[in-house]
């Protein structure tokens, strides 16, 4: 059974939009972080879909890169969040607005 490209892309767009909205509206830094992961994975999905559609391997290769970057990002990001929490006892981004004006 062949899944049409439109399905892949539709799901990818939906995931990406959900992630973006989550980044913009959620207050908890951890949740924002998870939303970013979701956006990355929606991109991965699009790559896979195109790779399948065009019968190439380039898309699949890129997915590995994205996964690597995402892993590194998680390592740095979580460390930052832990550090902030230790300092400020909060991870709500509303409270982290010192860098203004």
């Amino acid at each position, binding site marked *: 059974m062949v899944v049409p490209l439109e399905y892949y892309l539709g799901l990818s767009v939906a995931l990406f939009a959900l992630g*973006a909205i989550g*980044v*913009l*509206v959620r207050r908890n830094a951890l949740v*924002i972080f998870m939303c970013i992961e979701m956006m990355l994975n929606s991109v991965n999905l699009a790559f896979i879909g195109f790779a399948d559609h065009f019968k190439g391997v380039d898309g699949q290769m890129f997915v590995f890169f994205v996964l690597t970057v995402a892993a590194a990002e998680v390592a740095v990001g979580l460390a930052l969040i832990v550090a902030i929490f230790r300092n400020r006892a909060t991870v709500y*981004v*509303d409270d*982290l*607005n*010192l*860098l*203004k*004006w």
Partner: protein
Amino acid sequence: MMDYIWLVPCFPLVGFLINGFLGKRLPKNLVGIIGSAAIGLSFLLSAGIFLEYLKLPAAARPVEKVVYTWMSAGTFQAQVAYLIDPLSLVMLLVVSGVSFIIHIYSVGYMYDDPGYPRFFSYLNLFVFFMLTLVGANNFLLMFVGWEGVGLCSYLLIGYWYEKQSASDAGKKAFVVNRIGDFGFLLGIFLIFWTFGSVNFREVFRLAAEYPVGSGVITAMTLLLFVGATGKSAQIPLYTWLPDAMEGPTPVSALIHAATMVTAGVYMVARCSALYALAPFSLTVVAAVGALTAIYSATIGMAQFDIKRVLAYSTVSQLGYMFLACGVGAFVSGIFHLMTHAFFKALLFLGAGSVSHGLHGELDMRKMGNLKRHMPITYWTFLIATLAIAGIFPFAGFFSKDEILFHSLVNGNVIFWGIATTAAFITAFYMFRAVFMTFHGESRVDPHVHPHESPPVMTVPLMLLAMLSVVGGLVGIPLIKGLHFFHDFLAPAITPVVHEAHYPAAFEVALMMFSMAVAAGGIYLAYRMYIKLPDLPTVLAQRFPTAYDLIYHKYYVDELYDATVVEPIKQGSDFLWLAVDDKVVDGAVNGSAGVVAWLSAHLRRLETGFVQNYALAVLLGVVLITGYLIGR
């Protein structure tokens, strides 16, 4: 020896460098020795060159020695080079000789001054520039010396800079001189523009092809004369010289009597070839000289500061020199320059010796009967006074008489009348100074005990007194062949004088008459200040307006303040407060203000909420993508 002429100005320069950089660390006596020895060496070398020059055959004269080419651009050539001719030799000898004597005097006079090394280094620097000025073979190098002596004059007038009046006087001298220098510079430009050269001999050779009275020559000579009025303190730029008396007395003697202020006369005589082609300029020179001579002589009558009397006397005598040049008797002008250097330096040094003995007192109303305490100072001062009054056989007699003679036969009766009247006034106020200072009742502050100066000061006085006595004998009139000065100097000067011969009786009669005039002035001073000491006060009360006018120097300083200085100040205030503060600073501050105002509002975008930034990024991406797709 002529090859070493560059050493003549170099000795003082070396003295300046040593005393200027190391003076504070050297023992005091050594500083004085270095300063004086540098000038002494210059004098000896000049004398050697002079003797060598006398032996040269006429065809080999004059000599030019090029040290090196200073600049060379296209056809323009400026060299550091020295012209050895009678005129520059006379000036070199007079300048280095008188400077040497004054340096020795300064060793004693300035001994207790904390700035001793500074004083000697400035003095040496001055002599360096002065020798450069008179030795130069082109206008540009002369201008270097010209500006240099102006600088040293400024430094030395303001030598006691912690005194407000001294530093003001220095500034005044500098600014007034700059006005004259501007004219001088324009004159040099015009000369280069016209002749394509600044070398004296080249310029004079080319100028000879122009007709007498040509406009361009008249213009350049007038411009040069503007420079001369500044440096030599002639109307209208003379006001700085009386104020320059704020400097130490040796400075007044050296710079403001004997050497620097005569630079203008030297320059006019040097350019005699140009002036000979410009009768109008000559008339201007003569008229300004005659006017200055009588004008400042009248001011000298009512001054009480002994140095100011001498200062006005200097201005007046410089007027004589210009009068001589103006009627074409350049040699007589230089002759008077030389004798004046001797006796006026002596007068100033005598005044310095008096103030040294009275702990700095310069007001003649607080002197009197000093003859008893300072015999050497008195007698030398008297000799100089007789010389300046023009009494036979002192130096001033010969030179002044020549000027009077030429002003009559080459000028006209008006010039002669003015000059003779000025001679009368000169004799009067100079003897007034002698009588008030050395004769009559003592008005000295009882706490002050007058005393004679040490030998290091009195020996220079005696040397100069000797020169004031015999200095005129190099120019004996009437007998042909005995006027050595004239015969020696003649080749360097383009004569304007028509060598008409007048009967000896006429000349003798004129001499007798001018002697009688001088004697009359002396007698009047004697009547007023010895016989009837109340008379001056009575006269001052009888003619209050005239006295007030003279006492306040005709209010010329006030006039200049009102017409020149104040408008410039107000103009500067306007430029400062309106143009600079409002327009220039306004533009700068205004642009900064606009940026500050914009940023004050734009910074509100920096909310600190990371999600706002993320939204902005997203919107940006959407917009750019939308644009790329919809294009």
